[in-house]
């Protein structure tokens, strides 16, 4: 059971590295960007996992809850909430760059772009 308690963190580490692998090993720029958003999602999961309190509930007060109700930590939730929206904006910026690269070079594969640059 003690090992199960760390399962969230392990999934975080695995997802982080899957995303990182896509960023460094894939040559297709869109695939790299998807990898980057996987990396980002892993960080979100780490923050939210750390904010969880056993026996706690979502940090919204209600008269139906008992007085001694535990609440999960609101702070990581706030940070990640804004980070998700900022994340999609930066991904859109990256996609815009990829579209421009495609228009200029006719390809979105990194090795082919470098070949064209070398000419």
């Amino acid at each position, binding site marked *: 059971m003690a090992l199960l308690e760390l399962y969230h963190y392990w999934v975080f580490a695995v997802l982080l590295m899957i995303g990182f692998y896509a960023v*460094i090993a894939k040559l297709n720029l869109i695939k790299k960007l998807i990898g980057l958003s996987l990396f980002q999602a892993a960080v979100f999961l780490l923050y939210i996992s750390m904010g969880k309190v056993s026996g*706690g509930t979502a940090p919204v007060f209600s008269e139906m809850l008992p007085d001694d109700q535990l609440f999960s930590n609101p702070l990581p*939730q706030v940070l990640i909430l804004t980070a998700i929206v900022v994340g999609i904006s930066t991904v*859109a910026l990256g996609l815009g760059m990829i579209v421009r690269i495609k228009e200029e070079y006719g390809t979105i594969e990194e090795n082919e772009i470098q070949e064209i640059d070398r000419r």
Partner: protein
Amino acid sequence: MTIILSIFLLTMLVITAVAIVRIRNLFAAVMLSGIFSLLLAANFFLLDAADVALTEAAVGAGISTVLFLGALAMTAETEHSSSTNRGIALIVTTTTLLALIYATFDKPAFGDPAAPIHQHVAPWYLETTREAIDIPNVVTAVLGSFRGYDTLGEVFVVFTAGIGVLFMLGARSGGPKRAIPEQTEGLRHYQVPRIVGRMLIPFILLFALYVQFHGEYSPGGGFQAGAIFAAAMILYALLEGEKRALHALPQKLLVFLIAGGALLYGGVGVVTMLLGGNFLDYSVLADDPVKGQQMGLLVIEAGVGITVTGVLLSIYHAFAARDKF
């Protein structure tokens, strides 16, 4: 029971992520990343983060998928070349993975209420929200009031990203466009998605408004509402074609929304300063400091929602205007 469900969902996350990286067809990879986001949202919900789950479902599974598909339509559907440094990449990632897993053994147990993260400022937020702001949703209180500077910064990051995309893609239209006859624009010649979709749009818009203005009482707020509102308008554009969507919400108005929302947020800060308080200290907005806080929150959340809607819709239109298929 919850623990079994969360282990199942987390395992599914890893499987989906592996599939996303391995699959060569980019269209399938984008669809799988939509599924990944939905699974992630379910995980967030199990981890008591209802606000975050709502945002991830709207942004990750909805808008991000549409944007990636728009970019795919203009680039390529399959990745062809295979990298030469896969061995090195595997060694680097595996080593880092082992180091990270070794580090997790030093972390406090999952859900431990005595963990350092729950000691500092978090209990103070939970206690003070009741007296100082008196709204049930602590996440909204921290987002808008206690950490108002932080959120203002995030809004300006979104604003800057939107301007950046408009500069890169919006400046000139992508070559001569094939004239599309009115009847075949969007999905107008597919009756079933069109009619079902049209029926859904008013309810999605209504839900966006609910999420926006009920954000102080239940999970919700400007970021989520903006994303949901933009999703509804993107659905309209997909069904009825770009022209009609731009007729309903013209680009000029969207640019105005992008700047207007951010200005509204910053303007509240200036007003509080003029009334003798600190920047973004809403207590001075009304005679009763608690009422002032609530008023300030309502206005800045509206500002956030307006900017997020404007930016996401402008980005979508910038991509769609370049489509040459």
